[in-house]
């Protein structure tokens, strides 16, 4: 299998890659959303310097 065949996906490239990119985007968005959640809440509570809260 060549690389261009791989990306072509037997003619279904657009559909297959759109689905995979969308999937990765949803996963990434959820992780970012989770990361910034605790950090922002701590900042709102006036604990912006909280190293532990910011890291986890």
């Amino acid at each position, binding site marked *: 299998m060549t690389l261009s065949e791989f990306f072509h*996906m*037997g003619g279904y490239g657009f*559909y297959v890659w759109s*689905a995979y990119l969308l*999937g990765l985007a*949803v996963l990434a968005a*959820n992780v970012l959303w*989770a990361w910034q*959640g*605790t950090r922002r809440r701590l900042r709102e509570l006036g604990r912006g310097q909280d190293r532990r809260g910011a890291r986890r």
Partner: protein
Amino acid sequence: MWDALKRLDAPEQFFRFAGRLAPGLGWGSLVLLGIGLYGALVLAPPDAQQGEGYRIIFIHVPSAWMSLFVYVVMAGAGAVGLVWNSGVAYALARASAPFGASFTFLALATGALWGKPMWGAWWVWDARLTSELILLFLYLGVIGLQAAIEDRRMGSRAAAMLAIVGVVNIPIIHFSVQWWNTLHQGPTVTKLSAPSIHWSMLVPLLVMAAAFTLHYLSVLLMRARAELLVQERHAGWVDTLGEADDA
């Protein structure tokens, strides 16, 4: 076991426990995702009927499973919250709602991307697709109730009740392909007899599902921590977070 659970119901204990557990779950999910993607895109053979196009299954089916699983967890946490007035349970329900909505959206969107080349239509109003769309609306209703009611505890309670009533939709989604004539195909994995899918496709599918599940658990714990910080903002333990040792 029961004692351990009761200890975790204390917001402060849960906050620390979740903080310790979440990173490991996240990394585990990333590793499984790498393995699953390699299996899905490289190792799994093309399908006899659908060629390479069927590979959407490795995103579509796990996200559809998650949309149901997360809903049941959310409704279950809501029920625990209602019965025992548990703040931690409400935090878990609040953390689950947007996550579940995002995976319901993903299941619907990847389904459309699969339907277009295979059925010739992005969308059809068959029972499976319609009941999954209703699931998205239920999630949005739960999120809306949580956000719209000023008093957090009241909002959590109202949202929990809606979530519990909405559980009726879960078996409808699952059995829709058997109860009605649907364009959507019937079950291939969750049958009582052996799954009608070859192991070379089944294994990447299950690995992807495991990756999504660990991803959910890590996001759930992280988000529940954030929810608890707001819920418990007047509690003493939140005040001491910054200065305390790394426990």
